[in-house]
């Protein structure tokens, strides 16, 4: 049996720029930054006191089945449950009963319930060991987001939680894509979620000298920019409905885009930095998986988060990737708008790419003013006009040497649009 083609038929968003695809796209297009002084806790003792927070109005407390357990979970659980249920609703995808037999759930989670772990340690040390919540373990387990999505929706199909640091979300989407393409399942909910805005995250990234310390100074973070000084922490979740294309057409589903390729690789320049050669290898493998060439790529949604070494390593890889052809695809990063959202960063890149593939303008790399001379030949300041984007490449990298890349294209590009029918 031939490989299935895989399309995106729904999306659920919980982001610092809003709770829908449209709000996210509008914020990106308008060059809006969600980076603001941190409001969740007093950050005055930290060198970095800014973040891209998800507003409570974007992700109100859960209601319905297992609402109590969701509320006791880490932020990543709140975000993931909301995003997954929005995706299922947007894609009109049923998760209960017979529907689950051909569906799977793939969720990428990086730090899990770090926030709840920190709270528990403080509670233990200040009030005593027996005052730790009986929900402590379940609040922080990385799989609890997928678990509660399933329990709340009577979903009985397979669920997988993938933890590959910041590449987790892209890996989850990629693994779901491969499972559908090889006809193991017909559809999947797939995405990533993280909620790391907690004091221990600020002190830990501060210890790594990774955080931007421009608190109200020059706009930050500054992906690709000569004057970048580090990342800004963000949070959120994005979950997609992925579906075998013919099934989606038969049921008359709205088709946002087609996922064509995916690769994930190991290797890096240490535990916290990518290597140019490994990034290049991963991008090439993703294009090969899509049976595409670098000349077929119109836009790259990059990992670039504002760490000079990491951003330049990625640019070196992209420069090498596109050196052979004449194409100069646009290269952009959305971290200036959203901060670094960890496991959600790849899925947020995919959500932005889906916008560009559906006629939205390519979002400019916010705060990028000047690149190093060796990158002057790259298309980092493209004409941000709408349309004409047929295919995007998404690059992600996670601590520990985890690379993941996705190739996503306009739906039905190069083939006629079949007649849609309700089933």
């Amino acid at each position: 049996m031939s490989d299935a083609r895989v399309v995106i038929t729904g999306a659920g968003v919980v982001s610092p720029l809003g709770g829908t695809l449209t709000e996210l796209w509008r914020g990106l297009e308008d060059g809006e930054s969600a980076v603001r002084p941190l409001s969740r806790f007093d950050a005055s003792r930290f060198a970095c006191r800014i973040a891209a927070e998800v507003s409570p109005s974007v992700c109100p407390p859960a209601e319905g089945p297992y609402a109590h357990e969701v509320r006791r979970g880490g932020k990543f659980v709140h975000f993931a449950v909301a995003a997954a249920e929005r995706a299922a609703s947007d894609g009109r995808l049923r998760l209960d009963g017979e529907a689950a037999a051909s569906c799977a759930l793939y969720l990428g989670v990086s730090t899990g319930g770090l926030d709840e772990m920190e709270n528990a340690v403080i509670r233990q040390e200040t009030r005593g060991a027996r005052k730790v919540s009986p929900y402590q373990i379940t609040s922080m387990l990385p799989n609890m987001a997928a678990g509660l999505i399933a329990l709340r929706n009577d979903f009985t199909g397979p669920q997988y939680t993938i933890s590959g640091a910041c590449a987790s979300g892209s890996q989850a989407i990629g693994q779901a894509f491969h499972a559908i393409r090889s006809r193991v399942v017909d559809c999947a909910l797939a995405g990533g979620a993280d909620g790391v805005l907690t004091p221990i995250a600020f002190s830990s990234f501060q210890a790594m000298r990774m955080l931007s310390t421009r608190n109200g100074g020059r706009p930050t973070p500054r992906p690709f920019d000569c004057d970048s000084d580090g990342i800004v922490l963000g949070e959120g979740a994005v979950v997609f409905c992925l579906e075998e294309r013919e099934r989606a057409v038969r049921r008359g589903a709205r088709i946002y885009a087609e996922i064509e390729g995916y690769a994930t690789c190991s290797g890096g320049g240490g535990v916290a930095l990518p290597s140019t050669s490994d990034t290049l290898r991963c991008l090439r493998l993703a294009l090969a998986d899509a049976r595409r060439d670098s000349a077929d790529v119109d836009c790259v949604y990059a990992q670039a988060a504002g760490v000079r070494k990491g951003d330049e390593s990625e640019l070196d890889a992209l420069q090498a990737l596109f050196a052979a052809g004449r194409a100069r695809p646009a290269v952009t990063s959305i971290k200036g708008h959203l901060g670094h959202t960890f496991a959600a960063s790849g899925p947020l890149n995919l959500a932005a790419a889906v916008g560009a593939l559906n006629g939205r303008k390519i979002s400019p790399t916010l705060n990028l003013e000047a690149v190093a001379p060796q990158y002057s030949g790259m298309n980092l300041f493209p004409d941000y006009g709408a349309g004409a984007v047929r295919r995007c490449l998404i690059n992600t990298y996670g601590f520990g040497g985890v690379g993941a890349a996705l190739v996503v294209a306009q739906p039905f590009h190069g083939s006629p649009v079949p007649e849609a029918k309700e089933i």
Partner: protein
Amino acid sequence: MTSTEIFTKTVQHIGEYLEQDVSNLRPESELATLVPGLDSLKSFEMLLYLEDCFHVEFEETLLGRLKTLQDLIDYIAMKLESEKGPASVAV
């Protein structure tokens, strides 16, 4: 605090914890089936909440030994009483 006052306050605090109306609770209500969906983790957490409300500390194995809400009321009364004096009475 009288047993009736403890009952009233306990029901009030259970309602606060569960964020629902539990005015239907009676002294003879069984703890195991106090409200729908009150599983073991939620029961343990509810006891922590009641500890904070009454400023007492329950024994770890308490739930397994109590059957009704009245048993819990009596236990809380005993704990409150024991706070006043040196003697501690087991249930």
